[in-house]
C-alpha cells in the first residue's frame, strides 16, 4: 500500500474515533444550557487539564511556532515567554469568577462583566470583540488542518477538502455534545499531542545532527547563527527589534488568560481547588513547546528554503525515513492540535454570540431549549464563515493570532478592575474597552502611524487604562453592595452572604 494512503487511513481512523467519542459523550451531561456550555460544572482536574492545554495548543503551536523557529529562530521564544506569565492571572481571577458564576448562574465571561458594570452594552461589545477575534483563530486552525493533509498526501487531498472533512467532524460533535464533547476528545487529543511533540522533538535533532547540542553548535557555526541570538529575526530576515519582541510578549501575556473560551472554563471547573491546580500544572503542558521548537530548528540547516515556513513540520514528516504508520500517527496528532482548539473556539464563539450578543441585543428572554437551538445555529453559521476565510484568504498563522491578541488583551483592564478596583464604573469600563479596541484596530490596520514600533495592543492598553480610570473617577461609583460581592469573591464566606 502506498505510504500516503496508510497515513491518510490513520488520519481517517483518528477522525472517526474522535467523532464517535465526541457524539457519544452527549449522553453524559444534562440536556440543558448548563450542561451544554459548562459541563454541569463538574469537570475534574484530569479532563480540565487536557481541555485547557489542548485548547491552547493548536495549529499555532504545531505549525506556526516551529515555523517561526525555522525562519526566525529565537523570535519564537516569545511564545514560551508569554505563556510563562500569561496563565497566572487565571489563578486569581478564575476562582473568583467561578464562585460568582455559580451564585448568579453565569456561564460566560461577558455575563459577569456586564453584571459587575451593570451594562448590557459591555456585553454586546465583548461579544462582538470575542467573535471578531475567534473567527481568525478558527480560520487558522482550519487552514492548518487542510495544510497538513495536503502536504502529507502530496497534494492528493486538496486543502479545501482536508479542512472541510476535519472541521465537519468538529462541527458534528460540537453540535451534539457542546463542551462535554470537547472534554472527552481533548483528553484523547492532549495525550496524543504531548507524546508526539516529545517524540519528534528529540528524534529529529538526533537523527539529523546527532543531538540537540550538536544541532545548535552547527547552526551557530553556520551563516545563520544570528537567528539563535535573542530576539531572533524579523519577518524581513534582519534582526528583530527588542521593542517588538518585548511588546509581543507583554500584549500576549495580558491577552492569554482573557481569551473568552479559556476564561469561561473557570465556570466549568468542579471546584476552586481543581481550577487552581490546573493553572499550577499548566507549565508542564507548556514545556512541550521546547521539543516543538526543536523540530523547527532541526529543519534550518537540513532543509533550507522550505516555504511557507509554517509547513516545515509536515514537510519534515515527508522527508524522514519513518514508517508510514508512525507518520500517520504524527499527522493525526497535528490534526488533534488543530481540532482541540477549533472545537473550543467554535463552541465558545457560538455560546458567547448568543448569550452575550444576540440575546441582550434582542432584549428578549428565551427558554433553555430555545437558547440551545440558537447556539447550535451559530455553531453552524460561524463554522461556515471561518471556513470561507480559510479557503479564500492568504494569511500567515502567527501574524493572524498576534493581531487577534491585541483585541483580547483589551479585556484585561476590565477584568482586573472587576475584582480589584471597586471604584471602576460601567461608563469607565465601556470607555476603556472601546478606546482600547479603537486604538488597537487603528494601529493594526495602519502600523505606519505608530510613534514607536510596538505591538498595537500596547497602545490599545494605554488608551484603555487611561479612559477606564479617568471616566470611572468622573462618574458616580457603582452600588457598594454589588462591589462588595466582587471584592470579597476571593473568600468563600463573604461571597455567599445573602445580599445582592
Amino acid at each position, binding site marked *: 500500500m502506498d505510504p500516503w494512503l496508510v497515513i491518510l487511513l490513520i488520519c481517517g481512523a483518528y477522525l472517526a474515533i474522535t467523532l464517535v467519542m465526541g457524539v457519544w459523550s452527549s449522553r453524559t451531561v444534562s440536556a440543558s444550557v448548563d450542561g451544554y456550555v459548562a459541563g454541569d460544572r463538574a469537570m475534574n482536574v484530569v479532563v480540565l487539564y487536557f481541555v485547557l492545554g489542548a485548547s491552547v495548543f493548536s495549529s499555532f503551536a504545531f505549525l506556526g511556532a516551529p515555523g517561526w523557529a525555522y525562519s526566525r529562530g529565537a523570535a519564537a*521564544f516569545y511564545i*514560551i515567554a508569554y505563556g510563562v*506569565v500569561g496563565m*497566572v492571572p487565571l489563578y486569581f481571577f478564575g476562582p473568583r469568577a467561578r464562585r460568582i458564576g455559580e451564585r448568579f448562574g453565569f456561564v460566560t465571561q461577558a455575563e459577569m462583566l456586564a453584571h459587575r458594570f451593570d451594562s448590557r452594552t459591555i456585553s454586546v461589545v465583548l461579544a462582538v470583540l470575542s467573535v471578531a477575534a475567534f473567527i481568525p483563530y478558527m480560520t487558522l486552525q482550519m487552514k492548518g488542518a487542510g495544510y497538513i493533509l495536503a502536504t502529507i498526501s502530496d497534494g492528493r487531498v486538496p486543502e479545501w477538502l482536508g479542512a472541510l472533512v476535519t472541521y465537519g467532524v468538529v462541527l458534528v460533535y460540537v453540535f451534539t455534545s457542546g463542551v462535554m464533547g470537547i472534554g472527552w476528545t481533548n483528553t484523547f487529543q492532549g495525550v496524543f499531542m504531548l507524546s508526539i511533540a516529545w517524540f519528534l522533538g528529540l528524534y529529529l535533532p538526533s537523527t539529523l545532527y546527532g*543531538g540537540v547540542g550538536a544541532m*545548535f553548535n552547527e547552526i551557530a557555526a553556520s551563516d545563520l547563527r544570528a537567528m539563535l541570538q535573542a530576539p531572533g529575526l524579523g519577518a524581513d530576515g534582519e534582526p528583530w527589534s527588542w521593542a517588538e519582541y518585548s511588546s509581543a510578549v507583554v500584549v500576549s501575556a495580558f491577552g492569554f488568560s482573557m481569551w473568552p473560551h479559556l476564561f469561561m472554563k473557570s465556570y466549568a471547573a468542579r471546584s476552586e481547588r481543581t481550577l487552581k491546580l490546573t493553572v499550577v500544572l499548566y507549565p508542564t503542558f507548556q514545556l512541550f513547546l521546547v521539543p516543538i521548537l526543536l523540530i523547527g530548528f532541526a529543519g534550518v540547516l537540513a532543509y533550507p528554503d522550505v516555504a511557507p515556513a509554517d509547513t516545515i513540520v509536515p514537510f519534515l514528516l515527508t522527508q524522514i525515513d519513518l514508517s508510514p504508520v508512525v507518520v500517520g500517527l504524527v499527522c493525526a496528532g497535528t490534526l488533534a492540535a488543530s481540532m482541540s482548539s477549533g472545537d473550543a473556539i467554535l463552541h465558545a464563539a457560538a455560546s458567547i454570540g448568543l448569550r452575550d450578543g444576540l440575546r441582550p441585543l434582542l432584549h428578549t428572554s428565551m427558554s433553555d431549549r430555545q437558547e440551545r437551538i440558537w447556539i447550535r445555529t451559530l455553531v453552524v453559521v460561524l463554522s461556515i464563515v471561518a471556513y470561507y476565510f480559510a479557503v479564500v484568504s492568504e494569511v500567515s498563522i502567527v501574524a493572524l493570532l498576534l493581531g487577534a491578541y491585541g483585541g483580547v488583551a483589551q479585556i484585561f483592564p476590565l477584568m482586573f478592575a472587576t475584582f*480589584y478596583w471597586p*471604584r471602576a464604573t460601567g461608563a469607565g469600563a465601556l470607555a476603556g474597552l472601546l478606546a482600547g479596541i479603537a486604538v488597537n484596530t487603528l494601529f493594526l490596520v495602519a502600523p505606519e502611524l505608530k510613534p514607536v514600533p510596538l505591538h498595537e495592543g500596547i497602545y490599545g492598553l494605554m488608551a484603555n487604562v487611561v479612559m477606564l480610570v479617568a471616566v470611572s473617577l468622573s462618574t458616580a461609583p457603582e452600588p457598594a453592595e454589588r462591589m462588595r460581592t466582587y471584592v470579597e469573591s476571593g473568600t468563600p464566606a*463573604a461571597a455567599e452572604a445573602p445580599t445582592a
Partner: protein
Amino acid sequence: MPSPSDVPSGPVFFTDSSPPSRRWRRSLFIAIVLVAALALIAPVYPLFGSIRPLIFGLPLSFAWVVLWLAVVFAALVWLYRSEH
C-alpha cells in the same frame, strides 16, 4: 470596605478578613512573577540572549526562557500548596 455605602477610590487586593500570611504569600508570589516577566523582555533578557553557553544543549537565549518557566512553575506549586 469602610462602610456599606462607601466605595473606596483605590485598589482593593485583600479583604479585611484576609490573614497576614495569605497577604504576604500572595504578594511575594506576584513579585516573583513580575521579576520573571521583566527577565523575559528588554532590558534584562538582552543580557542573557547570547547563543553561548549552551545549557543542556540549548543556547542561553533558549535556556533562559525555560529557566523562568521553571521558576514560575515552582512558585505556583509553592503558592498552591501553602493555600491548600
